[in-house]
């Protein structure tokens, strides 16, 4: 692009750096030959380029570390190297196991939030084995059971035995439904077996899984902290 009289300065700069397209532009070169202002500019830009190309290298103001990877390689193959390499997988595995354990432990409770019954409902169902919690908690029934249960604490669940009859009668006296139903008697037996000293939660493997995961994570972190040499 030309201004009033002279070529564009960028074109003159291209000519100064001997760009092919500028050098081949006959109008541009003939103008520069005829115009002192443009010839000076091309000449100055040429000198400037030469001076820039002559700029010397620069010494760093502080010593540079020429081989940064050396330290990393040494630490990777040294005493703590295998621990460092094992740390990430161990930590990941621990976290995954802990997460599974956490979900397994919390799932019944979450289920309860969603369904309205939850863990209490589950435990209640296990305890009663029947329909009515009121039946289970009736004091008369408890009394009857005290009578019915043998010294070893277990009702054997024999519906035909004499020992079972007071239990059924007592349940009936409590005003519950199905007092003569043999299933109710079975329900009572189930409850007694449930309360033989083992809580339902203790049978669940999830807390143990959660504990194992957390323990693995802590152990990995501790081992790394103790065994891997630290910088400085």
């Amino acid at each position: 692009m030309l201004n009033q009289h002279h070529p564009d300065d960028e074109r003159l700069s291209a000519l100064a750096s001997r760009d092919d397209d500028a050098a081949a532009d006959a109008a541009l070169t003939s103008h520069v030959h005829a115009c002192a202002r443009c010839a000076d500019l091309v000449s100055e830009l040429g000198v400037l380029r030469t001076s820039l190309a002559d700029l010397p290298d620069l010494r760093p103001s502080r010593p540079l570390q020429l081989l940064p990877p050396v330290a990393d390689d040494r630490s990777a193959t040294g005493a703590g190297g295998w621990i460092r390499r094992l740390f990430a997988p161990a930590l990941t595995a621990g976290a995954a196991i802990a997460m599974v354990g956490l979900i397994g432990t919390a799932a019944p409770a979450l289920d309860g939030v969603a369904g309205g019954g939850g863990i209490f409902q589950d435990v209640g169902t296990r305890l009663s084995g029947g329909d009515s919690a009121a039946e289970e908690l009736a004091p008369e029934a408890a009394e009857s059971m005290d009578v019915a249960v043998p010294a070893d604490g277990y009702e054997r669940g024999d519906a035909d035995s004499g020992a079972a009859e007071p239990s059924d009668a007592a349940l009936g006296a409590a005003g519950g439904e199905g007092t003569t139903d043999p299933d109710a008697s079975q329900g009572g037996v189930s409850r007694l077996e449930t309360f033989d000293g083992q809580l339902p939660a203790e049978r669940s493997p999830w807390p143990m899984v959660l504990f194992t995961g957390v323990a693995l994570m802590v152990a990995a972190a501790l081992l790394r902290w103790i065994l891997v040499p630290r910088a400085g």
Partner: protein
Amino acid sequence: MTDDPQRTSGNRTPPLPDEAAVIARAADGDRAAFTQLMEHYQSACYGLAWRLLSDADQAADATQDAFVHAYKAMASYRGGIFRSWLLRITANASYDILRRQQRRPTTVLPDPDEGAPELPDIHAVNPVAEATKSELYRHLEAALAHLPPDQRTAVVLCDVYGMDYNEVADMTQSALGTVKSRIHRGRLRLRELMAEHRELFTG
């Protein structure tokens, strides 16, 4: 910005006398050979990084980044001028820093009058000419640092380090026409900045 770097006594670092053999050993994993190469070319790499970044600390960081990249890429080095190969890696490392810096802009520009003046080499054949040249370099460096970063990068890579337009375009991920325009505008701006010191060009 920390201390200004010092200019080396010669202009540009020449190749090592037995460079091909040293490069071959370095490519085979010989750390001593690689260290020898980096020691030899650190002024060239640092000079490029400093001119692109205008900051001594960032230039040192870029140079070290370049050494790490070079170390990793050494096995895949396929010949050619080693200095150019290393300078390209340094330019890329510097340009990465420059891009990060542009995303979080700071206004750190060196003062042309800052730092101790370069003393002429009294052992030089012509101390006056050496002093003039030294003064010219000092003003040129300051003028370069006052260019906008895109123009400075293009001018430094092309005019100071002799890369062609295509190389600069690749490195800066810019169109060829954009690169040419930046170079020409950068040169014209440099000429304006150096107008007060025009006599140094003829000295």
